[in-house]
């Protein structure tokens, strides 16, 4: 990975391009890159930033453009397919009167990026209310999708309780993964340590465009949802793509940063939000966020602990926090309140009976859960 100050100026440029704010010749800065073009190009491709970079250089640096074109064109083609699938899904859900809130890539690509093809997508994510989920599942089956069984460690009953998701793939094979989410926030970290206002988020959701059935989160909620997604996934899964989403949203949308900070605190996500937003500010720039960052900044000891795991440098270096030895302490360090972190740890080892039934089946006992933990070496 390139180790120059150059990186932050490149990332800021890409965010300006993403938000449609860059000068047409701004991409000429790539010509100043002192290293091998291939090294930086490959890094941009790995971070899912190739489409943005290609858009930055296509008129001013043809040699760079040709290196980035395959990834850029591939992402554009994939996005065409995803948005076509969204059309079908949206029409069916509208017919069946199933409200849906788009999340993640499809939502931010359409809302914040000047061109949706700048934002690579791997699937479609839609939040559906609990009561509507059975009909949503049937609607997808009617469209020719089959439900993916998912991981044995994440059965459907557990997905429902953890705010997880149900996966669907086309019956005929090929690409086109659709995920129906029980919540905009997934996983046990949120369930055990935080208190997001999900009804409020749903109420504030707006149509993705006038007359459209599909909704998206309000901008401030989308900022928090994206932030938490990056944090609870331990900055894995192309973290710079997620941070770029935040930076583009900060440039393209009128974010009420005071609301973002207030909600993060009220929902007990302040430390996680600060860690991610601070990294985005330092790596890419987050216009208008300074006051919110000040409001969210943890104590010095808490900051030191969080930075033991994640810094802008470790993000650029691609440090993998998903190994159990790092992941669990990191998730504990993210909790706003110590007692919530203690509960997270305690329940991971000694969960409630209803959790065990959802995870292992109705006849399973606590000790079978403990043995399963020991066998897998993970929680």
């Amino acid at each position, binding site marked *: 990975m390139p180790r120059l100050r150059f990186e932050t100026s490149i990332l800021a440029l890409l965010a300006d391009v993403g938000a449609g704010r860059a000068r047409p010749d701004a991409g000429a800065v790539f010509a100043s890159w002192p290293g091998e073009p291939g090294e930086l190009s490959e890094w941009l491709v790995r971070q899912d930033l190739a489409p943005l970079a290609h858009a930055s250089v*296509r008129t001013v640096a043809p040699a760079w453009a040709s290196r980035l074109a395959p990834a850029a*064109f591939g992402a554009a*083609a994939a*996005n*065409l*397919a995803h948005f*076509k699938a969204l059309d079908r899904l949206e029409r069916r859900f509208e017919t069946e009167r199933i409200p849906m809130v788009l999340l993640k890539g499809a939502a931010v690509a359409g809302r914040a990026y000047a061109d949706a093809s700048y934002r690579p997508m791997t699937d479609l994510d839609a939040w559906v209310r609990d009561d509507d989920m059975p009909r949503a599942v049937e609607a997808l089956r009617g469209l020719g999708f089959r439900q993916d069984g998912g991981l044995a460690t994440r059965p459907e009953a557990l997905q429902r309780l953890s705010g997880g998701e149900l996966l669907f793939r086309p019956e005929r094979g090929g690409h086109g993964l659709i995920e129906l989410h029980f919540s905009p926030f997934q996983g046990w970290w949120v369930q055990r340590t935080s208190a997001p206002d999900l009804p409020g988020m749903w109420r504030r959701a707006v149509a993705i465009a006038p007359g459209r059935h599909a909704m998206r989160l309000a901008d401030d909620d989308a900022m928090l949802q994206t932030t938490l997604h990056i944090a609870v996934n331990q900055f894995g899964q192309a973290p710079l793509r997620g941070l770029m989403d935040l930076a583009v949203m900060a440039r393209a949308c009128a974010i009420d940063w005071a609301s973002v900070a207030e909600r993060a605190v009220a929902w007990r996500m302040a430390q996680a939000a600060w860690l991610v937003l601070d990294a985005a500010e330092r790596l890419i720039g987050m216009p208008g966020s300074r006051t919110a960052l000040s409001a969210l900044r943890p104590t010095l000891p808490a900051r030191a602990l969080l930075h033991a795991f994640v810094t802008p440098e470790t993000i650029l270096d691609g440090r993998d926090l998903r190994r159990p030895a790092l992941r669990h302490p990191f998730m504990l360090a993210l909790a706003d309140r110590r007692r919530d972190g203690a509960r997270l740890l305690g329940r991971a080892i000694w969960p409630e009976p209803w959790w065990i039934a959802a995870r292992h089946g109705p006849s399973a006992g606590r000790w079978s859960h403990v043995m399963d933990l020991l066998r897998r070496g993970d929680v």
Partner: protein
Amino acid sequence: MTVALTERVVASPQVLFKDMGGEAVLLDLGTETYFGLNETGARFWHQLMASPSVADAWAVLREEYEAAPERLLDDLYVLIDELLERDLIRVDRA
């Protein structure tokens, strides 16, 4: 040549198009294969889709490109034949 000058070509129904700042990408949803068009290919595609016949597309392109008209027509038919072979376009028999 597989398409007469007087005939019109249209995109096959399973094909999606995306402009890429002058270049373009075509996605065949049926085969899940995509193709890139360079700036000239993208311009030819635009004109073929916008014109009532191949001849009309050629007439517009003759105004834009300095190449000899016959050479331009040859290049246009190279693209048409390749797009037909891959089922990305069809002759509009309506």
